[in-house]
């Protein structure tokens, strides 16, 4: 319960920009509910004017019908306003949540994004945001509407006839008790069903993605059997969940009918003793319905409200995640020529597993540093630390004597040019893609950068030159061309330090040879870090750091390392080992 309150509070504070809409919608909900409840009172009066043959008071009937006409129109307008405002609030709230969510993604540490599946984050953005505002809104307006209906109905009813009023008041909530009981029973089934859906989805993802392998191994029948088992289980829990939730409606309907009959019975008996008119009985019959409605609505929406809380909880787990530490107060980094010092650096992704241990390095401006070692040895981690995608656990990294944790991240990161294995293009023109880091660059500058990267020739051959739109996923240009565009991007910025993280792994060696020139040109006079598993690409580095299990186990030039005959020499020789049989 406390947890629910906390989530609710967070919801209100996360959407407080839109709270004006919320209050307006609630105000009109109150007005329209009260107006709607007055209508049956007047309808009952009308009935009382129609007593029997020759005993119809047409004058009064006509007056009341006119009054009712006005009331109905007023009611409709109020209902429309409350509907409209409520839904506007809901969409504005969803909009706000999505916006905050996206902005939040830009602020959390990269570590957070690395450790969360992207599909999950996207699903929160798309599905949960909607489920949440949907459920809460329905919940809030149902509860609010319900409370108002109940209170005002109670008021009218007790005013008209206390005995019947008591019957309705006491019996109707039974339906809520029943449906609460059912919901509690079915909750386990619902969870089991959701889990089973998840399992099936996972299985399908795995097997359809790998259909090629499945086919190759003639494994279709086994898979169909395995899926049948999952499917059967899904049926069992799904059928039960659906059954339980579907019996809520008839049982609450029963309670309502029961109350309805009882009102008629007791009403009739009281009438016989001259207590109330038939018109009042008709008013009560209609109240029996409207008093029951909020309870029915509440019980039918319990599942949705539950879902909303679950979604909200997921969203807030992100919205309330810790941001990257603030660097607003910190100064910009000063002049950087590429001198880097690493002192006693320690790092671990989790406390159990140390990744970097007591790393010490001194790198002079313009040096070419290669990082070599098996997968998972910490090469990429080192890059992450240099750019402060991750922060050191202990120790410090200095750029020209400035501790990089003591300056603004943005100013630090703009000192680096980075080319990754996956060349990231976005759906825009070639020109915009090159100018990604310097959106206002004039065309001449962009062309100059492209020329330096050796990309100008192929760009010219594209159907619309620099204005060619790169399609989503970049399928209209080749891997190698994409990499050249990435290089041009960096040529435009001329940063003092370069990072090439497996930049050529997705490219065949022949293409690599062709763009190697562009790389060499880019690296001239800049401190460069190269991560690669193809050793041929790093032989002429000034310093090769050989890493294994988070430690630098060897360092030196290609020649000195070969002469040493250690880990590196082994790796290198195996590449050129005599493989003739």
């Amino acid at each position, binding site marked *: 319960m406390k947890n629910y309150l906390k989530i609710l509070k967070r919801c209100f504070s996360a959407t407080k920009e839109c709270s004006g809409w919320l209050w307006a919608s609630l105000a009109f909900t109150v007005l329209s509910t009260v107006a709607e409840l007055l209508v049956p009172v007047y*309808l009952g009066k009308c*009935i009382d004017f129609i007593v029997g043959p*020759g005993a*119809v008071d047409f004058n009064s009937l006509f007056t009341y019908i006119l009054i009712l006409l006005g009331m109905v129109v007023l009611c409709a*307008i109020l*209902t*429309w306003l409350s*509907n409209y405002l409520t*839904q506007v609030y809901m*969409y504005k709230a*969803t*909009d706000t949540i*999505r916006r905050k969510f*996206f902005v939040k*993604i830009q602020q959390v540490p990269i570590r957070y994004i690395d450790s969360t599946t*992207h599909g999950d984050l*996207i699903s929160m953005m*798309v599905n949960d945001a909607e489920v949440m505002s949907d459920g809460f809104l329905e919940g809030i307006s149902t509860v609010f509407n319900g409370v108002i209906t109940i209170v005002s109905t109670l008021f009218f009813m007790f005013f008209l006839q206390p005995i019947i009023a008591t019957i309705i008041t006491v019996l109707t909530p039974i339906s809520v008790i029943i449906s609460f009981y059912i919901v509690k029973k079915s909750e386990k089934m619902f969870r089991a069903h959701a889990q089973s859906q998840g399992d099936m989805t996972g299985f*399908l993802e*795995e097997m*359809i993605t*790998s*259909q*090629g392998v*499945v*086919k*190759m*191994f003639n494994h279709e029948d086994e898979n169909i059997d395995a899926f*049948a088992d999952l*499917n059967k289980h899904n049926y069992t829990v799904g*059928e039960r969940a659906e059954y339980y939730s579907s*019996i809520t*409606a*008839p049982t609450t309907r*029963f309670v309502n*009918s029961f109350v309805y*009959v009882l009102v008629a019975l007791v009403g009739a008996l009281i*009438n*016989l003793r001259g207590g109330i008119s*038939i018109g009042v009985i008709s008013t009560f019959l209609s109240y029996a319905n409207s008093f029951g409605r909020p309870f029915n609505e509440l019980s039918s929406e319990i599942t949705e409200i539950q879902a909303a809380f679950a979604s909200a909880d997921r969203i807030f787990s992100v919205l309330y995640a810790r941001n990257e530490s603030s660097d607003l107060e910190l100064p910009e980094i000063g002049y950087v020529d590429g001198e880097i010092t690493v002192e006693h650096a320690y790092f671990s992704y989790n406390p159990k597993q140390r990744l970097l241990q007591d790393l010490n390095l001194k790198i002079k401006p313009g040096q070419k540093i290669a990082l070599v070692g*098996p997968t*998972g040895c910490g090469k990429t981690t080192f890059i992450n630390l240099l*750019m402060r995608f991750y922060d050191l656990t202990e120790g410090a990294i200095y750029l020209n004597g400035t501790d990089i944790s003591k300056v603004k991240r943005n100013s630090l*990161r*703009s000192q680096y040019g*980075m080319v990754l294995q*996956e060349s*990231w293009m*976005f759906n825009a023109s070639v020109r915009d893609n090159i100018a*990604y880091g310097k*959106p206002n660059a004039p065309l001449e500058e962009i062309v100059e950068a492209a020329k330096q990267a050796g990309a100008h020739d192929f760009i010219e051959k594209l159907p619309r030159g620099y204005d060619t739109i790169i399609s989503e996923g970049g399928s209209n240009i*080749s891997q190698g061309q994409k990499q050249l565009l990435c290089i041009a991007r960096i040529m435009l910025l001329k940063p003092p330090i370069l990072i090439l993280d497996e930049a050529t792994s*997705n490219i065949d*060696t022949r293409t*690599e040879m062709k763009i190697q020139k562009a790389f060499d040109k880019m690296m001239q006079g800049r401190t460069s870090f190269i991560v690669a598993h193809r050793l*041929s690409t790093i032989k002429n580095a000034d310093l090769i750091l050989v890493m294994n299990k988070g430690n630098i186990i060897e360092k030196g030039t290609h020649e000195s390392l070969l002469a040493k005959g250690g880990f590196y020499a082994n*790796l290198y020789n*195996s590449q050129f*080992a005599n*493989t003739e049989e």
Partner: protein
Amino acid sequence: MFSLNKYLRSYWLKITLGLIFKALEVVAEILTPFLVSKIIDIGIANNDKPYIFTIAAVTLAINIAAVFFALIAQKCSSVTAKGVGRNIRRDLFAHINTFSHAELDKFNTTTLVNRTMQDVSQIDRAIGMTIRLITRAPILLIGSLVMSIIINAQLSLIFLVAVPIICIAVFIIMKRSSPLFDKTKVRLDKVTNVTRDNLGGIRVVRAFNKQADETDRFLKANDDLTKINLDSVRISSILQPLLYVIINFAVLAILYFGGIQVNIGNVQQGDLIAFINYFSQISMALVIVARIIIVYTKTGASIKRVKEVFETQNSLALPQTPYHFNPADVEGNVEFKNVSFSYGSSKKNAINDLSFTAFTGDVIGIIGGTGSGKSTIVNLIPRFYDATSGEVLVNGVNVKDYDPVELRDLIGFVPQNNVLFEGTLEENLRWRKADATEEELIIALKIAQAYDFVKEKPDFLKTRVLRNGSNFSGGQKQRLCIARALVGKPKILVLDDSSSALDFQTDFNLRKAIRTYLKNTTLFIVGQRTNSIKFADNIIVMDNGNVVDIAPHDVLIKRCDVYKEIYNSQNKKGVK
């Protein structure tokens, strides 16, 4: 061929029972106001207490019966809905498993998963809803109409005017709002895409300090979405108040004309109360109809999507009388005769006029740049695709004349991406040969250079493999995939660029072991490293879909420029 009727037919009894019991429940519901009006008209009018009690008791009894009817009906509906859903899913998955690569390329994984899960769920939801509601609306409608006509035919004319007006109002509003729903989907996709893009490139975004611009890009997509949502609100929020006005105006008409009828003694006071009640039931029925229409529109789209999968047939025609062979003494000869191939809609050939022959025990290397058509060649051997022209022969017989299962049993295939499946290591290794002995598995592991690290696992062959093999490193996965293909000694072994994550020494040991243990296996190695294929009997050099040359290393290094270029790019020592 997919037809929903076929699936519904096997549940005909449950559907019928469900509909009948649901109808009975609704009848009880309709009788309630009728009986209550009798309490007022006869009981009160005649001061007849026993009559009042009797009718009240009867009404109550009917309602109790109604609950039980409802429970039976709901059970029938949930069993039918979920049962049909289960059966469709079962068949759909089996059908997906008959697809060849061409069909799988046409759809993608996400849409196939979504169709199997979400779309089928939508269908079963609609079935359940139909059983629960479809009888309700017409019975409420017709029952209420009949009852009202019985009470007073003239007054019921008011219904005949009001009902069509309500229908028209509902229809117009739905017609105007449903195109907006489609647009909403498109814009929601855009929001999704921007988010996915951003997450994928998060390092680039931060390295270039572009968080603010990215947020702007997102806001644009998000604003568009909100705008269309608000447009649809403007339309849909009118429906409820509009219905309210129509219904209550009708009620007022009933009061007015009812008053006249009561005055001349045609109708009783209690009848009017019942009349008003029936009218609200009729309008409820119409609301149900509107809801059903919305669900059916959505379901129609889902049925179409499911149907599309079912109607897609495996494009590889199976032979009438497949060629059979004796697995005990079969060879591993492979021949390509003037083979050309192009993918689906692409006009460009991925392979152009390729011919070569490989005999049992030969090693064929295939080399070339990314996208040169290397992998395509080996994909034709197990008949993942059919050659566009020319013939692929295994042991002199066209692969099209084999039963695909038997053909693939001959071949061990290690794909580019290393896929392991959730389960135990042992289960993964037995994919080619379900009854392989532990010894066979160990030999395969040893050849694949995987034995050493598997041996260190406390559970050895029973070690759990997590989904996508995520608890193994890239190199380990690759070696396990190789081992998997070796179990049962295939006659033809294909390594499709599958040693890229191995260091050079392991790669070398692997090739040596394969040559030693599998002497009678024809080996295809697709690769980028010249060193991995240098020892092959024949090397096919591919460039951009064209066969540049086919010859052993020694010949190629002298006469083939492309090969020389590749070789030098990897082997020239001391560039400086």
